[in-house]
């Protein structure tokens, strides 16, 4: 999947959930998009599968899935791809199950829509086991399941037809720690064993860096940094660094961590300054007058004047 210069606008208002976002996911790759609330994760997740959220419109940019422009594809073709080659597990996954259908029916529906008639059971049972769900959830209605179970059913639905790429928005944030761990392990496993590509959106720093190979950091609707996961400790952008410094890890003494003062503002107009300037400890005059470009630094990219100058000088 390749996302190129994607800009989204809220219809009828001067508000941009995403501005000039580019991103790619290779075959079998796991990519994390890391960002805090309002960063634009959910907007990007839906646009990435070619179906922007209601109330938002694409004003520029393209999304290619397997080389084909998925935003402008005839709907019938897009339907063929969905949940067969490309699946989405949305943020509020528990609310996305049909409320008056049993889980079995919802699963069967998606199975037969993609494979014609067939034994959905054989595809379902192994996945149930991997997800740690008892077989009786199949007979139940969504309201009879716990939040964690619903989240896993949504995951099961997305993985049922063994797609090449799954897009997941906050796959673990609604779960308790023990279930989070299970889901994380499962995602790693399907990537290794079935070669499923994964693009996931999260605010959880440690999940992003431990599950993904590449991490893209989203702030205020823009990509501010992209780096290989193993470069966690040498992140460059002040926001990424602030984020890495703020989440306490086990063993940290009290009061040893600092958050980032202030809060993120939505993008109201084409950026004319660094969106992080109001919170950035290293902000300079230029940061408030011009929008920093995204430049390549080493194996990653970063959008910050502190590195822009050096990169330009260097090449």
């Amino acid at each position: 999947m390749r996302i190129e210069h994607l800009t989204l606008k809220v219809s009828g208002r001067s508000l941009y959930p995403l501005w000039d976002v580019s991103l790619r996911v290779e075959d079998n790759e796991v990519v994390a998009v890391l960002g805090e609330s309002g960063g634009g994760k959910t907007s990007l997740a839906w646009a990435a599968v070619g179906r922007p959220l209601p109330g938002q419109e694409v004003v520029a940019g393209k999304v290619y899935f397997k080389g084909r422009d998925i935003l402008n594809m005839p709907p019938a073709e897009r339907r063929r791809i969905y949940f067969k080659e490309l699946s989405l597990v949305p943020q509020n996954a528990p609310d996305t199950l049909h409320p008056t259908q049993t889980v079995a029916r919802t699963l069967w529906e998606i199975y037969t829509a993609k494979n014609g008639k067939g034994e959905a059971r054989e595809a379902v049972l192994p996945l149930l086991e991997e997800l740690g769900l008892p077989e009786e959830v199949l007979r139940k209605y969504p309201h009879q399941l716990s939040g964690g179970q619903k989240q896993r059913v949504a995951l099961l639905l997305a993985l049922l037809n063994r797609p090449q790429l799954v897009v997941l928005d906050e796959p673990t944030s609604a779960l308790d720690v023990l279930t989070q761990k299970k889901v994380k392990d499962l995602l790693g496993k399907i990537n290794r064993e079935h070669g499923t590509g994964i693009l996931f959106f999260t605010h959880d720093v440690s999940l992003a860096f431990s599950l993904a190979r590449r991490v893209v950091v989203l702030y205020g609707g823009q990509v501010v940094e992209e780096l290989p996961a193993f470069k966690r400790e040498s992140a460059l952008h002040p926001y990424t660094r602030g984020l890495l410094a703020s989440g306490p890890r086990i063993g940290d003494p009290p009061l040893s961590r600092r958050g980032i003062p202030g809060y993120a503002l939505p993008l109201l107009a084409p950026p004319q300054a660094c969106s992080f300037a109001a919170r950035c400890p290293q902000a300079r005059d230029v940061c408030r007058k011009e929008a920093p470009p995204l430049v390549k630094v080493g194996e990653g990219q970063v959008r910050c004047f502190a590195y822009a100058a050096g990169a330009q000088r260097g090449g």
Partner: protein
Amino acid sequence: MLLVLKGVVKHFRVGRERQEVLAGVNLGVGRGEVVALVGASGAGKTTLLHIIAGLLAADGGEAFFAGRPLALRETRQGREQMSLVFQDPYAALSPHLKVADIVGEPLFIRRKPRQNVARAVTEALHAVGLHPAEAYLRRYPHQLSGGQRQRVALARALVTKPTLLLADEPTSMLDVSVGVEILNLLRSLAEKGMSILLTAHDLAAACYVADRLAIMAEGQVVEEGPPARLLAAPSRSATRELLRAVT
């Protein structure tokens, strides 16, 4: 010990079945101590907090607060020295009240004179790091960020100068870059002598603020102790499982 709980029991009815949510909880909180209740969802953390705060009546057990018996079935009395902060800062503040009124409300209810209230509100806002207080007094909740809302909720809890602060997942709805500041704030309140009992499902956050962890599983405190000792040598499977999940 400021707060002592012995054998607290609570049942809920689910349809026809009786479900035991708390099955005899024993727990103590010392003066100036931060205790974190940690456990998977459904372990009964919030229920316990609500019983202590008097939002729910327990079905059994005893409790002592500041040396006096605390009625667990009678939910109104003996809670003047406690305050509770809810999990969701977006839902906990009345949207039609200004910050000054939200924070001052507990004092108005106690019929304190207007001037004293104004002074106490300003102090409470400063204590949670919202200064100058004047910049916030006339705002409505929707004009605040999530972290600021949680601070306002904390200020409201602190305005009565409680000796025990109860906090239910105080940071789980906040961004980490914002939540850690709230944790730091709780910690510094404790250094000034306040006792805090909080719940957390995030083990790392709990270890970060607490003097002592109490691991809850299936309605009981199965293990407790200082974070370092508990994590180095967990003796119960519930603790080990939680630990495995984060490392």
